[in-house]
């Protein structure tokens, strides 16, 4: 069965899309510049930051929709840079800037919309978290650990470990650090342990069974060993020893197959 194809119009330019595609994805294919903060290709749409708003026009008029989540449909007319879109993004960025003056990403994006200062008050000048939830969602959807989550609601909403104590389910995989767009989620090595600062969690490091170097967390090893028992031994090697051992194994195999005469 062929995929359903829709014709849409983006900023006056006609284009074809397939069912299930989001406006954002269709627009980016057309080279449109739509900013995003809470969006990540590997995660389900969340539509919370509201900087990717575009105008979707139907016969009943235009409404602003989150392009990262809104699916295309036949005949959809999209404006990515109309006055309404620019004004809405500007207001959202002013609000974000008031919340997170310490975030470079927010400052840079705001500047692109001419927002260099905000008319609204700031509570915490050190705040970096925009509550996009990427850390929480990556941990749940990709790592399937759900070690961290949202606490409280409304203005008090924040990301954190359960009860803001050490997160028992945290593997120290670092996915949260990686996806965080503002640098709020941090991890560092302190005295041989991996400290997930934001989650108040210290993780014991595992040592390579060959060279003895600490290379990953104990919990991460245990999780992989549980899910992939066949790899239980192999994963206890650090990446460098693992490649050495693999090469060694292959060389051994080749030697067995072709006999002597090959360099050892």
């Amino acid at each position: 069965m062929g995929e359903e194809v829709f014709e849409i119009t983006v900023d006056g330019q006609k284009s074809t899309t397939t069912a299930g595609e989001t406006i954002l994805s269709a627009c980016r294919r057309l080279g449109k510049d739509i900013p995003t903060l809470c969006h990540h290709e590997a995660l389900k749409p969340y539509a919370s930051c509201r900087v990717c708003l575009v105008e979707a026009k139907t016969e009943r008029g235009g409404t602003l929709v989150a392009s990262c989540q809104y699916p295309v449909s036949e005949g959809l007319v999209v404006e990515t840079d109309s006055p309404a879109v620019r004004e809405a993004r500007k207001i959202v960025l002013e609000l974000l800037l008031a919340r997170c003056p310490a975030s470079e990403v927010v400052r840079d994006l705001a500047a692109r919309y001419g927002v260099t200062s905000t008319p609204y008050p700031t509570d915490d000048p050190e705040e970096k978290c925009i509550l996009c939830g990427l850390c929480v969602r990556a941990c749940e959807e990709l790592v399937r650990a759900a070690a961290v989550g949202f606490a409280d609601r409304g203005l008090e909403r924040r990301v954190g470990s359960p009860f803001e104590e050490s997160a028992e389910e945290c593997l120290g995989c670092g996915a949260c650090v990686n996806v965080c767009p503002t640098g709020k989620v941090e991890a560092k090595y302190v005295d041989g342990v991996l400290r997930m600062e934001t989650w108040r969690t210290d993780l014991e490091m595992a040592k390579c069974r060959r060279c003895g170097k600490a290379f990953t967390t104990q919990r991460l090893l245990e999780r992989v060993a549980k899910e992939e028992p066949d790899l239980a031994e192999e994963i206890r090697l650090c990446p460098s020893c693992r490649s050495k051992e693999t090469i060694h194994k292959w060389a051994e195999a080749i030697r067995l197959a072709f006999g002597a005469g090959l360099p050892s």
Partner: protein
Amino acid sequence: MSVAERGRIASVARLEEIRRELEAKGRRYATTISVCAGTGCQAYGCQEVVNAFAAELGTRKLDEKVLLRSTGCHGFCEKGPLAVIQPGGVFYQQIKIKDVPDIVEKTIIGGQVIERLLYSEPKTKERIAREADVPFYKFQERIVFGRNGIIDPTSIEDYIAAGGYEALAKAVTTMSPEQVIDEVTRSGLRGRGGGGFPTGRKWAVTRRQAEAVKYVVCNADEGDPGAYMDRSLLEGNPHSVLEGMLIGAYAIGASDAYIYVRAEYPLALKNVHIAIDQANEWGLLGDKVLGSDLSLRVHVSRGAGAFVCGEETALMASIEGRLGTPTARPPYPAQSGLWGKPTNINNVETWANVPLVITRGAGWFSRIGTEKSKGTKVFSLVGKINNTGLVEVPMGIKLRDIVFKIGGGIPRGRAFKAVQTGGPSGGVIPESLLDLPIDYDALTEVGAMMGSGGMIVMDDRTCIVDVARYFMNFLREESCGKCTPCREGIKVMLGILTRICGGEGAVEDIERLERLARGIKAAALCGLGTTAPNPVLSTLKYFRDEYLAHVVDHRCPAGVCTALISLAIDEAKCKACGRCVKVCPTEAISGGQKKVAAKIDQGRCVRCRACFETCPFEAIVIT
């Protein structure tokens, strides 16, 4: 006959047979006393009144002749505890335990009316004997709410005797699911939860989905301040909601249903559970309902009181056990709802309307109301109004009729200022629009909304900026915090409003407020976020002068905002009664006795207005 003997009702014919038995049983009583036992009347102590009636009837050996019934809410909460005596329809209000022997002696036995317990018209002081003649009831059209007063909500027998489950029987035996949907569509019934989406169309979309598993959901997460229509329906007539859901499930093709009730509604929860258990025992829920192919299990899900969980996507997340935050639509619940399956969500009042549409037909239903809003709407009429309570009126009724004819006008003869409809998502309607016919589209057009039916009346002593600040504070506490505009924007709007009320506002603040409100309305994620600025936008639209008075003249015309007022005593009016001296918490008032007029020490006065509220002579002047 006990349930065990009767067994599950396996056919419509058997249901009709039972109905006739129950009707005959009802006719054995010469008199019925229906005491309102809604939450409001319970707070007044109606249970003691019921107990007193039971004891009195027992002593006089009248229990075989007189049926005493604790019913759901009658709506006239201002006047509880209240009772209606049939035949005759005599309406007694504010009944005390000591009145009970008198009622039994004089009215039940003697057939006389007791004057002192009758409703008295505030203006004419005329006493009115019959419930149907009391203006509060006379101008209503109680098609959905009316049965509350004649059935005991914990008795399925009462519901059946009153024609209950007749619509279900008609639907499953004489109509195809498509015909049911067609009937509901033609009736013009629209969602009573606020959005006003055509119910039949929603059902049709859900039915059309290819998935085999579908759900129906009843949204009973009523959370608007001052609104309690759905609560009273669930408490007072839970079977009507179940019957509506059964018909919906039949039409849509669902075999599981959820009722999402807030846990702060203990009586509603209790009565819903009782109703579900009874309906299961009687064969009106469960497998092969009334011997038809319809099977339905109804589950109850308790909400923890988050306002946002009344938003349908958040509600479904909460039922699934996830965090109650909304998700952007599409997909709509009809396409992908509970556990990703097509789900039809209607609110309590919508479901309660469904049996009426089926029994009496789309034609009958659509004759009530306006061109695009059919049927009736239940409103909770609260605030500065004489007759606080729940009122059911035909769509298209003038706001003036609700406030003055049914509501009896404003207490203490004060002037009407505005009415807030639709709760925190709605807006205010000023006096100039009192003749507006109330329907979905008219309300939206003037910047308010139908909402679930909260109606808060304000008099001239209500500060409109303070009202906007109140709603913004409510929303600040109830925003889920997921999207930027709602979370951050409401905080800023509240800050600006607080500054204006505190006398620190500037003209630029009004412009800033307006721009931000428009931005949030356009950019927020869910229905609650996009409507959150409505209280600000509508008060700015109709009462801009009052905002300007706060920021330009530093004056609160209604005399509410403490930072902007001062209190003084009009010596000519002061009778030196000393009441103000007693209530003043800061001992700022001297004199006020021995014929010496009271005097306020401005340095000590904290402008709490206690003296103002207390003075019977209007001698305290706010400037």
